[in-house]
């Protein structure tokens, strides 16, 4: 392989190389430093005169005397059956002291888009054991549902609880977890690893770790390596894969860093104009394919800068993902775990996986009624702050109390409390029964007669 020593410019993570043979766009590049260490990069722009290379690692030590080797192929990930249980770096190198991955296949990490015609519509309910997700923002297999959080909030605990408890009721198919960390701290890593070890999840998991002190640019490929592995496990080996990506905010920061280094025209808040397309090329790699056994479900975590949901990172993510779970600081301050605020949360695929034959016939209506009741009670809190509780009508007082009950009984649950969907829905009914029956306008009469605790009790007594 030819080695060029024609670097003319090094700017941030970018190298400009001149007088090369024709080089392919997107090619993988090896950079050999004068002390013999090797770094990796990728071609971002190629022409007769100059080739621009983006380095995935720190550029310290790279100079005009460094050698450049173009590999002639795009970045590929070696994948194989023995990946389960392994811990790899953010660049895909073994980090657990074990041997290299035995490659059964080498797959391009820039995944091709799944043909929409080949997709199968996701409709298998995943029970996470968390009421605010199962009953009101249901997750289904093949969905991409992010957790929108803020710094200092327990999003990691929630993600871990989901990873621990997630199951499809009545099925015992093979599952796997692919965990990709981008720019998280060592402490956070320890928290995840300790939990994986405690629960034995590690043997079903492939872990990619790019920590806070690893090169930021490497974060660009970490999620792609993880998703390539996930797709291999799902669509070739038939596993149901849960992919956890954390923290997407760090990923976007890395993207901005490269954009700035390339002197691109920035979009909103300095993030590149193509960030939507770039994020889509990550988030869209979830789903189910017709005739294939496995599935890829994505649970990504992102911290909203300043808890601002309109910030470009959560905003663009929300437009691509199929809903979002929003973690709320106020609930956290009240000491409620998991502090999930259902009002801005949403699962777009919920309706495909619930109802008769999936969960229970009353699921959708109960969920809508809980939302409407909580929203109304929540609004009244603002009013109470001004006029006091005494000025409320009897009806309003009931809704106000309902909102408190909802937070304390329905939202709040233990770190290891695994509620079945029936338990969650029954709990919902119990809370709804504190409201006057004629206020339950979202629910059909016959469902009220069947599930409302009042009628159930009556039916029991009759029997």
């Amino acid at each position, binding site marked *: 392989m030819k080695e060029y020593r024609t670097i003319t410019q090094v700017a941030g993570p970018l190298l400009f190389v001149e007088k090369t043979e024709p080089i392919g*766009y997107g090619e993988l590049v090896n950079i050999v430093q004068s002390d013999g260490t090797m770094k990796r990069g990728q071609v971002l722009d*190629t022409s007769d005169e100059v080739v621009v290379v983006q380095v995935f690692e720190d550029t310290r030590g790279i100079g005009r005397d460094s050698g450049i080797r173009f590999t002639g192929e795009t970045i590929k990930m070696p994948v194989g059956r023995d990946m389960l249980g392994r811990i790899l770096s953010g660049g895909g190198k073994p980090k657990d002291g074990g041997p290299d991955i035995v490659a059964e296949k080498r797959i*391009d990490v820039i995944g091709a*888009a799944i*043909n*929409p015609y080949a997709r199968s519509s996701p409709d298998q309910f995943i029970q996470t054991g968390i009421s605010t997700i199962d009953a009101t923002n249901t997750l289904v297999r093949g969905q991409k549902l992010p957790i929108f959080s803020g710094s200092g909030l327990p999003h990691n605990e929630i993600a871990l609880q989901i990873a621990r408890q997630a199951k499809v009721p009545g099925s015992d198919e093979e599952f796997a977890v692919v965990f990709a960390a981008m720019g998280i701290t060592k402490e956070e890593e320890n928290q995840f690893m300790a939990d994986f070890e405690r629960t034995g999840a590690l043997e079903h998991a492939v872990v990619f770790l790019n920590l806070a002190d690893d090169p930021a640019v490497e974060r660009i490929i970490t999620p792609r390596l993880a998703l390539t592995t996930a797709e291999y496990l799902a669509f070739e080996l038939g596993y149901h894969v849960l992919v956890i990506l954390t923290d997407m905010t760090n990923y976007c920061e890395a993207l901005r860093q490269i954009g700035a280094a390339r002197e691109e025209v920035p979009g909103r808040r300095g993030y590149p104009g193509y960030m939507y397309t770039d994020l889509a090329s990550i988030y869209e790699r979830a789903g189910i394919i*017709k005739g294939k056994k496995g599935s890829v479900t994505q649970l990504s975590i992102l911290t909203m800068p300043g808890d601002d949901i309109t910030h470009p990172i959560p905003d663009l993510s929300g437009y*691509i993902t199929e809903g979002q779970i929003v973690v709320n600081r106020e609930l956290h301050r009240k000491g409620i775990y998991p502090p999930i605020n259902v009002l801005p949360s949403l699962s777009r695929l919920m309706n495909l996986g619930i109802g008769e034959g999936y969960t229970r016939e009353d699921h959708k209506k109960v969920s809508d009624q809980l939302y409407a009741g909580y929203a109304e009670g929540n609004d009244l809190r603002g009013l109470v702050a001004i*006029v006091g509780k005494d000025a409320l009508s009897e009806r309003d007082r009931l809704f106000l109390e309902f909102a408190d009950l909802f937070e304390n009984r329905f939202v709040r649950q233990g770190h290891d409390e695994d509620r079945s969907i029936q338990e969650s829905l029954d709990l919902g009914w119990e809370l709804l029964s504190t409201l006057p029956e004629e206020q339950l306008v979202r629910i059909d009469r016959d469902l009220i007669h069947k599930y409302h605790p009042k009628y159930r009790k009556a039916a029991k007594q009759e029997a």
Partner: protein
Amino acid sequence: MEVKGNNKGTLKRISGPVVTAVGLNAHMYDVVRVGNEQLMGEVIKIQRDNTIIQVYEDTSGIRPGEPVENTGLSLAVELGPGLLTSIYDGIQRPLEVLMEKMGDFIERGVTAPGLSHEKKWDFVPTKQSGDRVGPGTIIGEVQETNIMHRILVPPNVNPGTIKEIKKGSFTVEETVCVLEDGTELQMMHKWPVRVPRPVTEKKNPDIPLITGQRILDGLFPIAKGGTAAIPGPFGSGKTVTQQALAKWSDAEIVVYIGCGERGNEMTEVLTEFPELEDPKTGKPLMERTVLIANTSNMPVAAREASVYTGITIAEYFRDMGYDVSLMADSTSRWAEAMREISSRLEEMPGEEGYPAYLAARLSEFYERAGRVEALNGKSGSVTVIGAVSPPGGDFSEPVTQNTLRIVKVFWALDAKLSQRRHFPAINWLDSYSLYLDTLHDWYDENVSPDWNIVRSWAMEVLQKEAELQEIVQLVGSDALPDEEQVTIEVARMLREIFLQQNAFDPVDTFCDMQKQYDILKTIRIFADLAYGAQKVGVPTAQVISIKAKNDLPQIKFTKDYKADLEKIVANMEAEFKALREA
């Protein structure tokens, strides 16, 4: 077609979806084949000997020095039998064929014609030899699904006399008609997507597009041939609204463009539409639908082309005399594709990095809507409904603002409403329709002479409620005068019973105009009775808590509701009578 000069060149530079070639004699918007794999691209800029090309497929691995070939043709779609029930990518490649050719993932370098060139269709001529025909003339018919596909003389053919016309079974490429001057006509013709198809005249839209959605038909109607925008933050129900329109609007043909959106959503449409019935014909909805799916992770240049592909297909059916509705979800992703390409071209950016020609492109696109007299004298329409995804839900951003300057109907989605599960989450105070005046007479004649009166009354009550709510927020509802407490209750009924509609309930998902009127009228009857009872001294608490009205919400979920509704009205009257007498 003969191309003068050199139609071959070599690649000089590759930067993502934008590449530069030298030595190519090209014209703007010519389609070119790039590299050894012959990827499809389009010329978007010419700079001395450099030709700048946007490529519709992934360019990884392409090297400088590889060949580029100019086809000399513009990006065009194939129009003819076989369009209906198809699902295409942004450049009219059928996704079903792509899957057969390259498997579950979309790889590159595969071409596939938009229409099947093998399938035979039964062509029945409606003209005979000796007849004069001109651009747009209907020369025959093909039964495609339950839609009669009318075969048109392409708009760019000179008028002439038919020498020979054949009846029978043909592929779309076989000649079915020959003119005296030797012109051969096939069932299929091609049309460049960036050129609007010509019409004789654009007419004023004065018939509403009935959508079965109460807040749209009832309060903010759109006319056939009109334009509407649905802007809203994520999670406010844009896609659900667009899909409801695609399902239930009374257009004869629906073109649905998934432009830079989610793959699973397109799959949902694909699985759902064949199972749903058209409320008018009872046939599967899919039979009248053409889908274009260029999901967010498919090549960005093809996303830019997808809206043009869609609207050209819509215009083609319009020229046959059909009412077509076109949904574009989402035009913001289209604008972002323009921005991405523009920034790769290193053009001087306008607002928020969007190219300076954003406003011009948007208005050109929406202007292709309209109710027209086609070249053949038939009357048809294209209604365009575009979703807009403003970043952060901020309506002051360039795409929303430039769209609002053009469209006549604005359905403002509101995240606050969707959070409390008020669906469709369309804000009744912010939305507007500029078609109310032109549609006035239609409602008078076809729904009820007092429809327009009841509608204005409902809007007034909702407006009044908004003002009253501000007071309630400060002092609580008990502090309001009695009459206004009734107004609050009536407004609540309007919101919860009339405006809220459950897209997932088999009955409530579609509500015809008569039922819309009946529900609205019943709320009006309640209001009149309530104010009347109050005047004669019945306490407000009793007035607003009469039992009969509690049955009204159930009417929405009842198919044959007439008898139930009469009973409710009778009960209401009886209860109020009892109250007045007590």
